[in-house]
């Protein structure tokens, strides 16, 4: 009999954008395919997406050329710009590896967002899914920070340049 290991992982990131902008990065599967891969060696494709309460996303991920993991993500609770709670089933070759309840909270702090992701995992022992989730989610959120904060910095640069140009003109 295979036992199940339970663990709670918590990730916090601060983003230079409004909760509306950060929420959109989770709601849009195209955006998720961009920032959701932990490294350039990993691939992620969506077979189905349905971002609403009761909706189901199905994706495959894994090393590029061998997308061996099937991921089913069901949305249980969505509060626009504020909260997303979903359950995620990860399997490989028809065997279950882990099930997780994932809460994403978008907390506003002026023009910024404090993002808190809580991953409550039930992993088949020996599947190494707890360490996999810790590394994978952490790297994906780092990508999101780079994408959004990079965008904010480049917007600020455009504003600065245009202000300088106006002064010159």
């Amino acid at each position, binding site marked *: *009999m295979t*036992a*199940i290991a*339970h663990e*709670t992982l*918590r990730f916090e990131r601060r983003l230079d954008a409004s909760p509306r902008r950060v929420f959109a990065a989770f709601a849009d599967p195209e955006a998720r395919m961009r920032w959701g891969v932990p490294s350039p060696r990993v691939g992620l494709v969506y077979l189905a997406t349905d971002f609403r309460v009761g909706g189901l996303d199905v994706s495959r991920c894994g090393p590029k050329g061998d997308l061996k993991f099937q991921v089913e993500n*069901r949305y*249980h*609770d969505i*509060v626009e710009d*504020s*909260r997303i*709670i979903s*359950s995620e*089933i990860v399997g490989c070759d028809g065997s*279950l590896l882990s*099930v*997780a*309840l994932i*809460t994403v*909270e978008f907390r506003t702090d002026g023009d910024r967002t404090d993002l808190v992701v*809580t991953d*409550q*995992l*039930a992993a088949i022992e020996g599947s190494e899914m707890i360490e996999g989730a810790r590394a994978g989610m952490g790297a994906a959120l780092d990508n999101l920070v780079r994408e959004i904060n990079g965008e904010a910095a480049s917007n600020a640069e455009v504003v600065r340049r245009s202000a300088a140009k106006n002064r010159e003109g």
Partner: protein
Amino acid sequence: MSERSVTHATFRIERFYDFPPATVFAAYADPTSRRRWFVEGEGWEIESCELNFREGASEHSTFRFRGGPLIRNDTIYLDVVENQRFIFAYAMVIEGSRISTSLGTVELIPEGKGTRHVYTEQGAYLGGFDNAAQREEGCRQLYEALARELEQQRKAA
């Protein structure tokens, strides 16, 4: 606590039943049996109840406790391995307001001629409507009701 705040908690309840895993599993899978111990209970008024214990299936029920507010339970079974384990996600909603979303794992571990029933709940409890301690107490009562159900079945056999 603000309406938006979420409290995350995990609790685990272990209980030994003097019945083999297949008998304990059947008390979940058989809708007549489960309705007796899981749904019915003194003071509970059942308004609707749809039991559907299989992987990928959903269950919905609505009920009140002693004329109180309408409570809804929406459950989906994410993984079911006969006589061994099952994992489900469920939401509790009171008068249209969600109070929690949880992941529940039940493991049925053979122990001698009986079963060690291990329930682990990993929950996201919302906005101060509910808390993990109350939920844990509610679950303990359910597993006592399961013990009585199994004893009743033995007497009836």
